[in-house]
């Protein structure tokens, strides 16, 4: 049994890591073989050297971007869950509020960002953009979870005359947990995307200190290795956010929900 568990971990981590390393090796070999200059396509070794050389600048920008992402994600989670709970209480509220949430979701954030930069301080505008894209998946998934309670369990709670509060605490919230966590996984990644998009808009107007601003700045200077280095940090951040939320989901659902059990199989 332990042997099987170890082989599962090796398969889960080793295979994607191996493919990633092989891709980097192919990339490095191709750049060296074809003598491609760094301003066209830098080799991974050059990107790594740039990451080390510009570490202070890039990592301070990374912290700014991650700070905005985290802040937006927390606000989106609180607002998304609160609105989902409100909507779950009555169809009337759902009909009144959902169109606004959908309108915000379907309007591209890149189109809203310049307007927000007019009305708000750049930092707040970036935060609002990141919040807007992360909010809807958390709202819609939590709403779906709250509405997807097993009919038999509803009957059971009715049989024992459970109050609306007891139904919420002991039935609806635990039932909604898998969908809520799915919303978090999607929302976490999108908060980063929203922050980057808003920073790009802010960076284009000469304001900003986040990673996307470093990309814009490096683009102006044709410093392609730094662009790739910033891009690599964004990708790694996205992977880390997704990985952390997937791990949280696994811990909370392990033992009882099919999605976590499928990963164990």
């Amino acid at each position: 049994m332990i042997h099987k568990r170890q082989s599962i971990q090796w398969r889960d981590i080793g295979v994607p890591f191996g493919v990633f390393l092989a891709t980097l090796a192919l990339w490095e070999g191709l750049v060296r073989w074809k003598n491609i200059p760094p301003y066209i396509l830098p080799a991974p070794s050059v990107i790594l050297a740039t990451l080390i050389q510009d570490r202070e600048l890039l990592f301070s920008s990374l912290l700014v971007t991650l700070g905005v992402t985290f802040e937006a994600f927390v606000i989106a989670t609180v607002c998304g869950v609160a609105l989902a709970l409100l909507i779950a209480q009555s169809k009337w509220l759902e009909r009144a509020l959902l169109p606004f949430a959908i309108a915000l979701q379907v309007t591209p954030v890149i189109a809203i960002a310049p307007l927000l930069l007019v009305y708000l301080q750049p930092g707040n505008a970036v935060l609002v953009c990141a919040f807007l894209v992360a909010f809807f998946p958390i709202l819609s998934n939590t709403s779906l979870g709250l509405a997807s309670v097993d009919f038999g369990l509803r009957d059971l709670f009715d049989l024992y005359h459970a109050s609306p509060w007891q139904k919420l605490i002991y039935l609806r919230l635990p039932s909604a947990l898998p969908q809520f966590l799915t919303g978090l996984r999607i929302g976490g990644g999108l908060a980063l995307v929203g922050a980057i998009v808003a920073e790009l808009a802010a960076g284009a107007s000469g304001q900003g200190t986040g990673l996307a601003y470093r990309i814009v700045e490096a683009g102006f200077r044709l410093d392609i290795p730094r662009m790739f280095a910033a891009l690599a940090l964004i990708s790694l951040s996205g992977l880390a956010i997704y990985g952390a939320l997937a791990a949280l989901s696994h811990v909370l659902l392990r033992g009882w929900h099919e999605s976590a059990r499928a990963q164990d199989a």
Partner: protein
Amino acid sequence: MTAFDLADAQGTAQALVSLRAVGKTFPSGLVALADYDLDVRAGETLTLLGPSGCGKSTVLRLIAGLADPTAGSIDWRTPRIENNIGFVFQDATLLPWASVFDNVFLPLRLAGLSRQAATARVNEALAHVGLLEFSRALPRELSGGMRMRCAIARALVTRPALIMMDEPFAALDEVTRFKLNDDLLTLKRRLGATIVFVTHSVFEAAYLSTRIVVMSRRAGRIIDDIGIDPELARDDDYRTSKSFADICRRGSLALRVAIEEATP
């Protein structure tokens, strides 16, 4: 006493709940029950037998208060009984995220009891169904039969006078089903609750019941009301006895009539 004259003998027992001219029509227009009369008498194990769609489960839901009748009345001997009904659903219907203990604790928790105050009663209910040593397990770690035992323990934990069971063993294999049938009879003897049981199986009905009501698909019309001597020992000898065969034959004939009535 034979199976054929007991219904009258039991008719004198006091009813815990009486359904009078009860009707249930769903918003779609489907008539599940019409002009339906039934007395559930104290201490009996009443089985509702009939083809799919005859309204057996609807009767249980109406008695349990999970649905409202669209006609007629449901009269209780005392409100105390009405407010404390145990129900075992067709699926075990357990909270998948909660342990066996917490699932059985649920009705008491909803009634406002603390975990500490409820522990003795939860453990007693778990001991009744032989699950005490599995109290920390999650439902997915249990077999189908054990999950159903957990559901039975949950129904028992409030010490109800009336327990409704809606085809609880239908999804189980025959060996497990026989074992749970025996366990249910033991519990019944020990606790003395009144049971209303729904099944498709004539044999299960004949083994468990002290009374079988066979229902037609035609809006729940009662085809036959079969009384069974409660003093008959329910064991392997009973399964092969003439009494058992007689009850099964009468139940099967009534069921055939019910099915023929249901066929357009």
